[in-house]
């Protein structure tokens, strides 16, 4: 049984996610020149790298990271095959059920309505959670819990990063205007000053 994970610390995950994110962004910038990319492409690169970073940082404890990461090792191909088979079978049954249900008179009993609602929402949840197609309801709920926790951590990290970058760029501009001395000094010194200034600004947050 899954214990309460709301109180679990996500700090290691956040650290790993940040590291992965920076690495992947660096690779992206090395691969394609970012000046040539449009805003949407850049956003997509950032988002996909964030998703991949989250999945990589999560490790092997859940099934949704494997759905995000397209690379499949030898061990996971068997699982993927089973999952895809399950997915296909479920889709066949779902389609069959839907067709059969249309011909039947709509039942007005409360429990039937509730059951239909639950079923519809379960399928919607499957679409939202990565890799949710091939799971039964029980594991779907567990994956949803896990995914929510890590998604929240991802949002938190991304927010901090974007704030930091934004603040730094603003301050960097103001710094450059205010103290030309910084620009003239060596690059290392500039970076070092930036670091210190950044540090102080972050402390004010």
């Amino acid at each position: 049984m899954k214990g309460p994970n709301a109180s679990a610390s996500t700090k290691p995950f956040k650290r790993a996610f940040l590291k992965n994110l920076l690495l992947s962004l660096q690779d992206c910038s090395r691969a394609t020149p970012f000046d040539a990319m449009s805003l949407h492409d850049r956003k997509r690169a950032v988002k996909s790298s964030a998703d991949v970073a989250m999945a990589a940082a999560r490790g092997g404890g859940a099934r949704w990271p494997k759905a995000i990461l397209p690379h499949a090792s030898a061990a996971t191909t068997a699982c993927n095959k089973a999952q895809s088979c399950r997915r296909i079978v479920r889709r066949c049954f779902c389609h069959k059920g839907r067709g059969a249900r249309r011909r039947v008179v709509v039942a007005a009993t409360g429990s039937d309505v509730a059951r239909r609602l639950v079923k519809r929402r379960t399928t919607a949840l499957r679409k939202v959670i990565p890799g949710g197609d091939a799971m039964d309801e029980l594991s779907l709920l567990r994956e949803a819990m896990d995914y929510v926790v890590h998604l929240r951590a991802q949002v938190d990290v991304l927010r901090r990063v974007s704030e930091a970058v934004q603040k730094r760029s603003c301050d960097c501009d103001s710094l450059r205007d205010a103290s030309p001395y910084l620009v003239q000094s060596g690059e290392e010194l500039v970076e070092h000053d930036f670091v210190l200034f950044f540090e102080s600004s972050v402390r004010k947050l």
Partner: protein
Amino acid sequence: MDMNESSEKGMKSNASSGPGNGIPVEWQSQFSGTFSCTPAAQQQHAMMESFAAVSAGLWASATSQNMALSSDVSAMSSAAQRSAGFLAPMPAFLPQGLSHFPVDSGFIERAARSTCFGGGGGMMGAGAYGAADQSMGDAFGGAAERLMDHHRNECNDKADLEIAGNGHDEVPSSEAAGGDCSSKGSDSKKRRRPNEVMGADQVHCSNLPADSANESVHSKDKGEESSPATTTGGKSKGKGAKDTSESQKEDYIHVRARRGQATNSHSLAERLRREKISERMKLLQDLVPGCSKVTGKAVMLDEIINYVQSLQRQVEFLSMKLATVNPRLDLNIEGLLSKDLLRFPGVHSSSIGFSPEMMHPQLQLSQPGLIQGGAAGMANPDVFRRIIQAQLGAKEGSQMPHALNGYVSQMAYPSLGSQDLSIRPSQDGFQM
């Protein structure tokens, strides 16, 4: 737990006979879904298999719910010893969870003095349980409520219903009422459950089908439980006995079928699955903000879906913001790392002096001094590049219109602070 094991061995010798097979079935059909308790309770369930009395079942349900009850153990044991011998191990079993149970000892003696030991034990359990419920009050919360519901559903006896109702109403005179019902109920219990007697004739087993048929009728009024009722008692008895023996041999999660519910493996497994699902829904309720008052699977699922979708939209928005703010996308590594260091406690500030060295083009982020914690084995940057390029290429067609749709609304809030973003999930009126 040693006492329990020895008692179980003692019980097994009694239950090995033919009639003993019928008894576990009766036993099985009385328990509600208390398996969802702690694993300690599950072990207790293993013990309980050998017991046959309804009262023991009720007691164990009380115990496994971790009620802090104090029992008049001496009175209990004396009463039990007056009853059949198999009830004797039970009080030894009781002190595990019962500590402060304000049961009227007079009531206990009254119940114990009643006709059949099985019925007496039952009344002991039922009446005491009612008193317990009255005294504990809100301490049980939903657990006791659920048990009472199960109890109400199981019993087709008015006396039992009365007791359950009394326990529920928290009337101070419930003990007296329970005592009144005890004589009535014990008679009926004696009538209805003659096969509780250890070493009873095999003839009594034939009463089981009638009993389970009776009980199944009354259990149907619980709408949520859609498990099929047993058609033939013999079939259920056979399967139940088989299940008992199987679950005794294998180390599965022991589920007790409620009285009147089908005891074949399918419905048991289904009930187990349903309980797991409801338990996980409760956990999800804690995760998703603002869902403490929501009851029901459908609404809960709706909230979860909304929350996940809002989180995913936040990710998109933030990545868009990052792409906007940083046109070169070369996030200043050491600056961000310093922020990382400041954010995560436990890292001393002297490591910040390392950061200018991080400007080295061959970024070695695997420095343990700076990055702590569980880092996945993605040290190879090529993997990232491959993955991201594959993803960018694959999602090109699908993401572009989606991105445009998403951004019409989101670009209207470019100045949204972080606080607004966090408020958004709860304000989300997004309908499916």
